[in-house]
């Protein structure tokens, strides 16, 4: 039966860009393991030959022409929502390189 170790939890936290305190690693470890235990019942279901469903109303590859059809917000209005410094109509983000 699946159970998440502290190592698993720390790994998942890193993947999802979350920092967890030690007591949270333990707390979430228990809670997430309980969720996995609950969803384990899906393994009882015989799904041999059953197609997976991702889209429930039969839509498939909905396309449109690459042309502007709505201008309900100006680029500057969108830039204004950023908490970071705007330079030359670009958002200045922290560096993607690790600090050395």
């Amino acid at each position, binding site marked *: 039966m699946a159970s998440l170790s502290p190592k698993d*939890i720390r790994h998942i*936290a890193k993947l999802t860009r979350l920092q967890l305190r030690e007591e949270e690693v333990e707390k979430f470890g228990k809670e997430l393991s309980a*969720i996995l235990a*609950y969803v384990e019942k899906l393994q009882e279901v015989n799904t041999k030959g059953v197609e997976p469903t991702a889209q*429930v109303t039969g839509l498939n590859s909905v396309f449109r022409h690459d042309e502007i059809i709505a201008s309900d917000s100006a680029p500057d209005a969108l830039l204004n929502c950023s*908490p970071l410094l705007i330079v030359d109509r670009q958002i200045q983000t922290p560096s993607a390189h690790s600090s050395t």
Partner: protein
Amino acid sequence: MNPSSLTIAQAHKKLKQKELSCTDLVQACIDRIEQLDDSLNAVVHNNFDSALKEAKKIDAKGTFNSPLTGIPYLTKDNYCEAGVPSTACSNILRNPDYIPPFHSTTTKRLNDAGGISLGKTNTDEFTMGSSTETSCFGPTHNPWDTSRVPGGSSGGSAAGVAADESVFALGTDTCGSIRQPASFCGCTGLRVTYGRTSRYGVMSMASSLDTIGALTKTVEDTAIVLQTIAGYDPLDATTSNIPVPDYQAALTKSIKGMKIGLPKEYFIEGINAEVLKAVEEAKKIYESLGATFVDISLPHTEYALATYYVLCPAEVSSNMGRYDGIRYGSAPLTTGSSLSNFTLQEHYEKVRTEGFGDEVKRRIMIGAYVLSAGYVDKYYRQAQKVRTLIKKDFDDAFQKVDVLLAPTSPNTAFKIGAHANDPIAMYLEDVFTGAQALAGIPALSIPCGFSTDNLPIGLQIMGPQWEEARLLQVGHAYQQATDWHTRKPKL
């Protein structure tokens, strides 16, 4: 009589006949919110100044051509409304509050018809919850018993409508988040067919499951709102081209001869006896109206919640990736104001760790896990296959019956804090409202009685995809023969 207690249909009549001005109606709702909301905590951002300005314009124009012209409404905080704080009740979109520069299609359609936005309502953070307790603004209190939850995640909207803080309110239903609060608060709530209404401008939680809809006082009002908000939207590629029927015309058709299925998996041990009794009484009403009952089985019902709690977190983990403190929300405090204090990775981690609450973190993490290499087939793919089987159960049932009848919730509203340390107990509150979301079918919850401690009980009516008109017809027939939906809490 307080104008805020009117339904859309009643208010429209009075506005058109100039018995009531739009300004007075809007002011009545504002007064009601100011009088009551300290004890309910349903409204989290107010738009009163703008609402009164709009009201004056509408009164000056004097034409009430749409049934929604001049009707005040509240909106769940996961919708984007231009110029109104829209924070999904999460700290990650606060300090400063995110104020969108654009409208969701739904609020735009309502406003174009003359609807008046009063403000935003409380929700579980990013709509993840079944009680409106995980909001960064604290819980909303059920107007029928303020020590209890209003349900969730559209609890603020349901409480607001039940308390007459507005004439109707917008919500979203991903696993019951419109129906369950409607059931707990004694109002009417419709989950539409997936893609019947546009999700453009509404913050996504689970993209294959989210739907847009309203909490109202009557089925007639639901039909009125749906007429305006339903329909294809080029800005939401998951909306359908299927034409929108005349929902109001459908209301008064007789339900004589209709076949109503009773799925046995929804009438099991453990359901509150008073809930069962109320649904039994509702059956008798339908019999007296000429409907017949057919026993049905939906054999995969017991797997619906497990399926949901694999697929939903998986989609959540993807959708929550956009909250990174770059385009919106807050940025972490830096000593001095130099960005070089943090790397991008550290920036993401700090924003998300400080901004997200525990339930959101739980779902992001479990979602990432079930999608990860080595586990995706066992969990995610298997859940998608079980989803196919759950949908097939409904398709098969609707070959034999026109609609299905069941309780909305196995119980009435629980006490605030009852599930504080048990996330799974909270998930199980949605045991009867998950399967419809997985199958993408519409389902309506209407009030059908009260418990001995005066808590509302909800009746759920489910139908095939695109048959909202049929559900409204069946719901309206019940509301013509009963008056549960007209009862108001003592406030």
